[in-house]
């Protein structure tokens, strides 16, 4: 414990890491306020830049981007009614109306404080829950891991963007993509079509750059003529005593909701903020104020979306199952830097793990300072013309895709997946399930194969393992629960 705390504390005394986290927080806030970029795209674009860094520094950069961009989405949500990130969509419901009443500073102050409390709370939960979960994960064998990945895939059905079936199709498509290349055990070639550049399978980095950055570029190209109306901001105001009295319960509730939602595999800040907002409304004594500039609405959404960031890191680091789209990229970052996610990470490299947690804590405190003192400046960044911004994203995407393996095939893969991602989004499919499926794909297949070998091909024996059966039942309920529930209600009526 002392070792862990001193590792966390070392982040605060390491000048290089401090400088790096400060610079990344500034970058994260800029990424967050630029509509369309967001934490996931930002992390995908920055991943190649972390290649030569030490593992802790690299993951600190990615997690800082995650934390600060998630917060910064609220700045544009409040000032220009355009959420910088999807996680800030719920903040527009009350943030912008309050800003229109001439209280933009108050709205931003509440968003900053709520986000910081949510983020710090979730890091504390991460520090406590992750090692505990790691102890449980020691007991996991292939059947349990297989069932867990199936549970993770089933959770895709409830991601907010896209419909349940569409998200599942995306997830399964992602798993299918993971089968491209030579199979690990038998070296049988699958879907390579004679192209030996694909022998090792699809690299995660170019696929993610394509799905998140290039597809977003194509989506943004439809916004060329969008006119943005900005609300004037004089200064960010800290919440008053009256405000605190009204929002403290909401913040605490949203902290719990956000962290819990974040821990669930494949769920993320967007779902958390929506639930945080709706729960804030449900429990509020001033329901009529919601949608017209309620401070509880802002606090509920903002505390929840930042609380989800720490929560989402729990399954990512302990089980190797991404808690959200951005943590899928952080997971790839962990793998690229030789940090194998899982229970052993918490025994063999515990110092590094806590340094990563420490850097997340520091990032939360840094964005608070930036939010309070520089929000006005950052809000101006959002007005950069998209005809300048997105060509830069194009350059960063193709160079970044090339950098990891220094292979042109990765550039073509990024472009192809950019177009695939764009058409998927155009038809209402979210791209995050494809990314999560791609990451989980190898785990699903390998653990299924190992399980079958363990039980001499008797697949039903997987159901005889209590923990595996528990996860499979959860997966079944996650998939069929809502339909069964509606059937029961209809039958009763």
């Amino acid at each position, binding site marked *: 414990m002392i070792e862990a705390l001193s590792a966390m504390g070392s982040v605060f005394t390491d000048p290089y890491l401090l400088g790096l986290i400060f610079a990344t927080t500034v970058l994260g806030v800029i990424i967050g306020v630029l509509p369309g970029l967001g934490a996931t795209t930002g992390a995908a674009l920055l991943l*190649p*830049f972390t*290649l*030569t860094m030490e593992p802790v520094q690299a993951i600190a950069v990615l997690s800082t981007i995650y934390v600060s961009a998630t917060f910064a989405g609220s700045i544009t949500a409040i000032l220009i009614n355009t959420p910088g990130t999807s996680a800030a969509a719920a903040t527009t419901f009350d943030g912008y109306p309050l800003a229109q009443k001439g209280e933009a500073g108050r709205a931003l102050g509440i968003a900053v404080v709520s986000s910081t409390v949510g983020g710090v709370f979730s890091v504390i939960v991460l520090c406590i829950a992750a090692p505990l979960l790691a102890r449980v994960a020691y007991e996991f064998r292939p059947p349990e891991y297989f069932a867990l990945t199936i549970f993770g895939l089933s959770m895709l059905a409830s991601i907010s963007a896209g*419909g349940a*079936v*569409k998200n*599942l*199709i995306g997830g*399964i*498509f992602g*798993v*299918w993509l993971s*089968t491209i290349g030579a*199979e690990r*055990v*038998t070296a*049988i070639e*699958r*879907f390579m079509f004679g192209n030996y550049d694909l022998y090792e399978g699809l690299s995660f980095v170019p696929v993610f750059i394509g799905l998140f950055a290039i597809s977003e*570029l*194509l989506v943004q*190209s*439809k916004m*060329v*003529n969008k006119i943005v109306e900005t609300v004037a901001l004089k200064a960010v105001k800290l919440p008053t005593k009256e405000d605190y009295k009204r929002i403290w319960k909401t913040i605490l509730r949203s902290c719990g909701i956000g962290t819990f939602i974040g821990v669930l595999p494949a769920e993320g800040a967007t779902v958390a903020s929506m639930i945080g907002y709706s729960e804030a409304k449900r429990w509020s004594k001033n329901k009529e104020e919601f949608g017209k500039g309620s401070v509880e609405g802002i606090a509920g959404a903002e505390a929840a979306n930042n609380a989800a960031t720490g929560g989402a890191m729990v399954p990512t680091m302990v089980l190797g199952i991404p808690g959200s789209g951005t943590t899928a990229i952080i997971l790839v970052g962990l793998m690229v830097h030789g940090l194998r996610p899982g229970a052993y990470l918490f025994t063999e490299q515990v110092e590094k793990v806590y340094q990563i947690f420490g850097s997340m804590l520091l990032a939360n405190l840094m964005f608070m300072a930036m939010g309070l003192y520089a929000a006005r400046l950052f809000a101006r960044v959002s007005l950069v*013309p*998209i*005809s*300048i911004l*997105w*060509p*830069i994203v*194009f*350059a*960063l995407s*193709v*160079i970044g895709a*090339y*950098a990891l393996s*220094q292979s*042109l095939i990765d*550039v*073509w893969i990024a*472009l192809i997946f*950019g*177009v695939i991602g*764009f058409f998927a989004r*155009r*038809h*209402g499919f979210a791209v995050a399930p494809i990314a999560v499926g791609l990451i989980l794909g190898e785990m699903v*297949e390998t653990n*299924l*194969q190992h399980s*079958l*070998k363990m*039980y*001499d*091909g008797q*697949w039903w024996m997987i159901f005889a393992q209590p923990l595996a059966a528990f996860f499979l039942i959860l997966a079944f309920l996650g998939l069929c629960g809502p339909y069964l529930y509606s059937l029961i209600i209809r039958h009763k009526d």
Partner: protein
Amino acid sequence: MIVGDSMQARSFPIFLMVINLMLVAILSLQFYKTYPKEVELEKFPTWSSMLLFLIFYIMVKVSGDMFVAIPVVMFLMGLTWGQKKVWISFVNAIVTPLSVFLLFDYVLQVRFPRGWLTNIYYG
């Protein structure tokens, strides 16, 4: 599908495709009940951007140099996305790739494929 004590390597992706076909069938059933909203047609910049990706591919294949193709595509992308001041697009198309190239070359020590321009730099 399950042969001996394990699953055949070729069976797993086929199994996935079957599941996805079933899901597509469910989706079409949903669409049959409630037809989805008509998808908005993209405007010029979207299609031109995809065309620029193709131009990028051809240029890299011809010149072998990403750093010839990137500025050209960035410049054209800026213009097709509505940038009226040509010089801004031009400066953006030169400065951005150059700075990223230098960053990758000096700091990250990534070497890019040799081509018309990079040959001059690498010697």
